[in-house]
C-alpha cells in the first residue's frame, strides 16, 4: 500500500516537473536547431546566436540590461545588508510589514503604473535612472529578506561577547556580521541581478523610448507571429543565466533555512 502511494507520489511530481521544465528545455534546444520550429539536433548550430547578436538593438539593450542589473543588485544588496543588520539589532515594530512585505506582495503592475504616473507628474525624463530607482524598491525588499534571515542565524552570544570586549556597532558589523553573512550577501547579489535582468513590467512602464532592456526588446517583438529562432537564442542565454542562478541559490537558501529551523 505504502509503496503504491510512493510510486504515485513520485509519478505526480515527475509529471509536474516535466510540465514545468519542458518549455524551458525545448526553448533552449530549439535555439541550437538549424530548422525553424522543428527541433532537429543532428547538426546543432550557433547560427541564430550569431544572427541575434549581430543586431545593433540587441547589443545595445544587452549592455543596458547588464549595466542596470549590476548597479541595481549591488546597491540593493548593500542596502539589504545594512538594513538587515540594523533590523536584527533594533527590531523596529511594523518595519517589515510596511516597508518589505508590501513591495513584494502588491502586484508589480500597480507599482509600475503608479511609479510611471509619479514620473510623468514630476516631468522626469525617463531612462536608466528612473528604471533603476524603480527596480531598487523590490530588489531592496528581496535582498533584505534573504540577508536578514542569515544574520538572524548568527548566535547572539558572539555579538554580545564582542560588545562586552569593547567592540562598537561598526566593528561588529564589519568583523563579525559581514563575514558570517557573506554567503547570503552573495546569494542576494546574484538573485537581485536575475530579478532586475528579467524584469519586464516595471522596466516597460518606467523606461521611456530611449532606454531599452533585453526583456523590453523581446516584448516589443512577441505577440502573434513573434516567435523566431533569433529570440529563442536571446531567451536561451537569459534563461540559462537566471535559471542556474536561481537553482543554485534557492538550494543554498533552503539549506540555510533548514539550519535555522
Amino acid at each position: 500500500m505504502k509503496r503504491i502511494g510512493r510510486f504515485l507520489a513520485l509519478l505526480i511530481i515527475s509529471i509536474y516537473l516535466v510540465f514545468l521544465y519542458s518549455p524551458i528545455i525545448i526553448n533552449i534546444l530549439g535555439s541550437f536547431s538549424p530548422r525553424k520550429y522543428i527541433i532537429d539536433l543532428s547538426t546543432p548550430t550557433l547560427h541564430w546566436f550569431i544572427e541575434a547578436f549581430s543586431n545593433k538593438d540587441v547589443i545595445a539593450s544587452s549592455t543596458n540590461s547588464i549595466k542596470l542589473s549590476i548597479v541595481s543588485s549591488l546597491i540593493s544588496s548593500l542596502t539589504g545588508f545594512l538594513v538587515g543588520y540594523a533590523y536584527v539589532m533594533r527590531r523596529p515594530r511594523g518595519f517589515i510589514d510596511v516597508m518589505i512585505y508590501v513591495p513584494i506582495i502588491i502586484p508589480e503592475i500597480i507599482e509600475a503604473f503608479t511609479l510611471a504616473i509619479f514620473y510623468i507628474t514630476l516631468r522626469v525624463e525617463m531612462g536608466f535612472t528612473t528604471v533603476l530607482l524603480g527596480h531598487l524598491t523590490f530588489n531592496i525588499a528581496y535582498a533584505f529578506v534573504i540577508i536578514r534571515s542569515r544574520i538572524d542565524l548568527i548566535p547572539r552570544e558572539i555579538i554580545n561577547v564582542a560588545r562586552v570586549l569593547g567592540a562598537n556597532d561598526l566593528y561588529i558589523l564589519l568583523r563579525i556580521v559581514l563575514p558570517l553573512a557573506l554567503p547570503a550577501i552573495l546569494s542576494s547579489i546574484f538573485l537581485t541581478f536575475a530579478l532586475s535582468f528579467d524584469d519586464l513590467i516595471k522596466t516597460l512602464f518606467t523606461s521611456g523610448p530611449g532606454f531599452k532592456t533585453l526583456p523590453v526588446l523581446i516584448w516589443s517583438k512577441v505577440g502573434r507571429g513573434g516567435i523566431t529562432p533569433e529570440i529563442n537564442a536571446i531567451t536561451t542565454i537569459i534563461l540559462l543565466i537566471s535559471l542556474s542562478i536561481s537553482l543554485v541559490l534557492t538550494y543554498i537558501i533552503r539549506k540555510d533555512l533548514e539550519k535555522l529551523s
Partner: protein
Amino acid sequence: MNKLSLVLKKIFRVYPLQIFKDPLYLVIGIASIYIIIFLYLPIIVSITKILAQGISVDIVMSSLPVLWRSFVIALISTAISIAIAIPISYSLSFYLKDKEKIIVSVLIIAPYWVGTLLKMYSLAYLLLILENITNQRILYTETSLYLGMIYNYTPLAIIPIYLAMERIDRIYIDSARILGAKTLDLIFRVVLPISYPGLISGFVLVFTGSLGEMIVPQVLLGSPRYMLGQWIYELTFTFRRFGDASLLSLLYLILTLVVLGYVSRRNGAREIIL
C-alpha cells in the same frame, strides 16, 4: 539665532531624534524613506490623478468587459492551480524523503525567480512545436492562455499549501490511519482541513496575481487589451487616460490589500516568498 537653536533642541530632543543619534535607526529610516518616496508616494499621486484628470464614463464602460474577463480567467486559473497544487504538495510532503523534499521544492521554486516573459515565451515556443507535430491549433487559443496562467501560478499555490502540510503533526496522520482511514479520507477529512490556512494563502496569492496579468495574455493569446494589466498599460501609454487607469489600479490595489491583509494575519509574510 539663539531662539532658533533652542527650538531645534526642543524639537530634536523628542523621540524622532533618536533616529539621527543612532546610526542603525538612521539606516532603517533612510531605507523607509526611500520606499515611501518610490512606492507609497506614487500611489498617492496616482490617486490624486483620479480627481485631477477625471474619469470618463465611456472608458469606465469599456473597462467593464475587461474587468469581467480578468475576473473569470483569474478565478478559473486559480481553481485549476489549487486543484493541481493539492496532490503535488501532498505527494511532496507525505511520500518523499527529507533529501528529496529539498531537491523537489528547489526545482519547483527556482522558476519563480525567472522572468514571466521568458517562461511564457518558452511555453509559446513549445506549443508552436507541438502544433507542428500534431497539426492542431493550440497557440493563441483560450487553452494556451489557461496553460500559461497555470504554468505561471501553480508554484505560487504549491509553496504555501506544501508548507502548511509540512506543519501538520504526523500523530494525526498515524492515528487516522490506525483508526482505519483510507488515503482519500485522510486527504479530505484530515489533511486538507488542517492545512486550510495554506489553501487560503495559495488561493489569494494566485488570484490577486493573475487578476492583473499582462504578459500571459499578450504572449499566449496574442491579443492586446484582453486582461486588466494590458488594459492599464494601454490606458496609460496609448490613450493617456491617467485618471481612468488610476481608478482601475486603485480598485485592484484595494482588493489585493484587503485579501492579503486577511491572510497575513493568519500566516507569516515570509513563507510566501521562500
